[in-house]
């Protein structure tokens, strides 16, 4: 097997593995579900995720240690991760190959020429690392997730490609999953892929911050691509399909080389080798974006976080609509870790975790947010899946006992992600004289956080009712009519002057049948006004019990803008957001 075939096989394998891990990252025991697959593998192999979180949190969480493997391989062999492993890189290479088909040799050579603009990716890297390192109080913000190739690909597959396929009826389990703003996520993904038609591996060459990082790490690579002096005729064929545009013909730019080995295969003189000695044509071991440009990128990256928070998004002006998943850290620490990979959203069994759009501010873009209308249910209070999948512990892994506030956590009470509020202007029993309390019924905690108080207001009648003959379980009407069946629902009562209420069992147009006899002493006099009352159970929320799961909001029959809504008030993760004593 030639090296090229091996490289292609490796790319196909890792891309398939990546897609499989995305698809399998749903809760369940079956082979096609989570069931033990290392679905975070690619994110954990990503040294940029590791380095950025290391800078922002001064720690390396769990599986992120795997990045060390990539670092070691890169130190030994250069950017083989880019050329052999990275699934996003493989997709770029494939689209680039499509775009180059049928082009003449000079055109190909032109498209694979090194351009100084390739140094841009180093600036992107500097910008993101500065943002991660130099936030307020040392904790930066992980904007790197926006352009990190693994995060970008994972997010795009999780939140755009897979939901899109499910919508087309492919591999759907039950109703297709929803993803808010999938169009924007897909647009970024597609734009990155389509740019390869302009130049192969456009994203990798010009934008990829991970590629820039690996280029720097791999500058002393033990085995490097290079030219041997003896045989080279200077024909330039080696640049025909050079993926990294690293100029193997001349002074090779080692940090640009993605070890695709096309030059090795294309050279007809055996003048290119993977060797330990430096290239005969000379090497440029470092990218050259210019000191001033790097400085500018660092400064603007460092300014990014404080500038983005000038509006107070993590302080006084925090967004109450930004309800984070259970176990999410306090907002600043959360933003120091969240890489916007969409794993929490993919694994969420109720699809209630959704990518935030720009409505929550640019810094929260595509971070997880609970949307109780879009989900299949609220946030199930016995579920802790998201925190166990989160690769950076932006949502920390909870034990069920901690979430429920049992065992050693009994003193702290259950974890709260928000609090429900009844909108009395929209709630049917509060505003519309209609029984309902679906919210109370569905409240999953015990004792229920939603409780009711019964009231018996008089029913609005078009014309007044007057008593005719009354006795036993019957009241005849002398005036007024009853709309057929309206008061026979079990919720209506006759209100006697004594204060006693007797439930209406059934009625005709002018006669009422009660479920119990009227005591003789309380019989209404003929000609007196008759009052019909409706029993309404009006919902209230007990903030000591409410955990903000949003099941009530999800089930509320006032569908558009719900009559009971959860906001982030009282959430456990922020003592500052506490609402009650």
């Amino acid at each position: 097997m030639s090296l090229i075939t091996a490289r292609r096989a490796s790319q196909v394998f890792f891309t398939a593995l990546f897609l499989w891990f995305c698809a399998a990252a749903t809760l369940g025991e079956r082979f096609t579900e989570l069931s033990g697959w290392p679905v975070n593998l690619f994110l954990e192999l990503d040294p940029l995720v590791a380095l950025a979180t290391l800078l922002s949190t001064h720690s390396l969480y769990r599986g992120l240690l795997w990045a060390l493997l990539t670092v070691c391989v890169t130190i030994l062999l250069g950017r083989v991760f880019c050329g052999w492993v990275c699934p996003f890189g493989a997709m770029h290479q494939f689209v680039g190959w499509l775009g180059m088909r049928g082009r003449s040799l000079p055109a190909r050579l032109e498209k694979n020429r090194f351009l100084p603009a390739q140094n841009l990716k180093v600036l992107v890297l500097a910008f993101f690392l500065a943002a991660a390192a130099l936030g307020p109080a040392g904790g930066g913000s992980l904007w790197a997730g926006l352009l990190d190739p693994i995060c970008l690909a994972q997010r795009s597959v999780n939140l755009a490609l897979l939901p899109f396929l499910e919508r087309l009826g492919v591999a759907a389990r039950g109703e297709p999953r929803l993803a808010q703003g999938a169009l924007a996520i897909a647009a970024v993904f597609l734009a990155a892929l389509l740019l390869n038609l302009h130049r192969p591996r456009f994203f990798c060459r010009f934008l990829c911050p991970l590629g820039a990082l690996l280029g720097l790490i791999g500058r002393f690579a033990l085995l490097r691509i290079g030219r041997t002096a003896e045989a080279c005729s200077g024909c330039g064929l080696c640049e025909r399909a050079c993926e990294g545009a690293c100029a193997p013909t001349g002074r090779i730019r080692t940090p640009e080389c993605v070890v695709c080995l096309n030059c090795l295969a294309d050279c007809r003189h055996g003048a290119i080798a993977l060797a330990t000695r430096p290239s005969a044509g000379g090497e440029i071991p470092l990218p050259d974006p210019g000191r001033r440009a790097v400085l500018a990128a660092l400064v603007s990256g460092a300014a990014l976080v404080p500038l983005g928070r000038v509006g107070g998004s993590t302080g006084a002006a925090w967004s109450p609509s930004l309800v984070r998943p259970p176990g999410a850290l306090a907002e600043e620490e959360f933003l120091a870790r969240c890489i916007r990979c969409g794993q929490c959203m993919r694994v969420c069994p109720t699809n209630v975790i959704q990518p935030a759009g720009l409505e929550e501010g640019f810094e929260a873009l595509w971070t997880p947010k609970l949307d109780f209308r879009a989900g299949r249910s609220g946030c199930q209070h016995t579920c802790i899946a998201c925190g166990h999948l989160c690769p950076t512990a932006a949502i920390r892994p909870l034990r069920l006992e901690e979430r429920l506030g049992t065992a050693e956590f009994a003193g702290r009470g259950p974890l709260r992600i928000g609090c429900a509020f009844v909108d009395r202007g929209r709630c049917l029993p509060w505003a519309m004289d209609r029984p309902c309390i679906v919210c109370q019924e569905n409240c999953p905690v015990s004792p229920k956080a939603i409780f009711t108080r019964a009231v018996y207001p008089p029913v609005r009648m078009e014309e007044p009712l007057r008593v005719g003959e009354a006795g036993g379980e019957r009241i005849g009407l002398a005036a007024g009519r009853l709309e057929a069946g309206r008061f026979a629902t079990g919720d209506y009562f006759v209100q006697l002057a004594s204060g006693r209420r007797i439930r209406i069992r059934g009625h005709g147009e002018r006669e009422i049948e009660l479920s119990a006899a009227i005591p003789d002493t309380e019989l209404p006099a003929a000609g007196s006004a008759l009052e019909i009352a409706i029993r309404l159970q009006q919902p209230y929320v007990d903030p000591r019990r409410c955990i903000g799961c949003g099941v009530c909001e999800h089930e509320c029959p006032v569908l558009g803008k719900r009559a009971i809504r959860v906001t982030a008030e009282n959430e456990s993760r922020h003592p500052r957001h506490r609402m009650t004593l």
Partner: protein
Amino acid sequence: MRPADPLNRREFLRRAAGAGLGITLAGGLSGLAFDPEGPAGLPREEAKTGLPDFSLPGTAGRLAIARGAERRETLGLALRALGGIESFVRPGDRVLIKVNAAFASPPILSATTHPDLVFELVRLCFAAGAAAVVVTDNPINDPASCFALSGIGPAARRAGAALVLPSEGLFTPVSLAGGSLIRNWPVLTGPLAGVTRLIGVAPVKDHHRSGASLTLKNWYGLLGGRRNLFHQDVHRLIAELAVLVRPTLVVLDGTTAMMTNGPTGGSLSDLRETRTLIAGTDPVAVDACGAELLGKRPGDLPFLGAAERAGAGTVDFRRLAPAEVST
């Protein structure tokens, strides 16, 4: 032809024919697509009226009350008192078991039908010669989570039953003749296709709005669409369900009753060991009997009287001379 060439006859005819064809096509297509009315309002979907009656002639009014702590034993006892599972399931029957899987809640919290009961009932149906047994519900929480966490899914599969999770294609609009609420309403009819026997299995639960969630309330789980709206007239809705759904048999599991905080429960302190399992062919009588486990009288539950008046059963269950057995 170069542009400078004069138009010859052949070319003129060719162009004229092409132009004529183009105009005819454009005109024809416009004519075909022409719509002088504009769109109509909501499409009217023709609803099926009613559901098949699964009750068996000659078994009306059978009722058994079994006392004991072990569900598989009390179910066996109760069924024997009713004449044996064989009098309800015959060889070749296709049985649908409607469980209550409303919440993603573990069996110990008794918010859902107990998996032991599901397993035993499926086993008995197969033992009686059933050709197929299907278990279904349209839960409130995420269906897959509900069937998994409640243990109903694994129990059903272990016993050999097929599990049907609701999906849009399984609902068809149904109207109840003479009903005022169930009009053109999506009902989970998909799993009913080809079914010859229907068995409802529900736990005994407190329910704040309707008073109690028993076997009649369990049919709520066959409804789809915006069924939450029915809470506004819940008693009438349950009475209509009692008329719409005529099961072969219902089993009410009061081994553990949810006394408070229903229908979700969530704590062991909401439960009480009431050690009773009720089975029968008259769901109204079964529920009237089960209400007592919650400390309620039938008069406290308006849907029972309404169901009786609609001809769906008997509230005064003692009139049916229930067989009382115990382990």
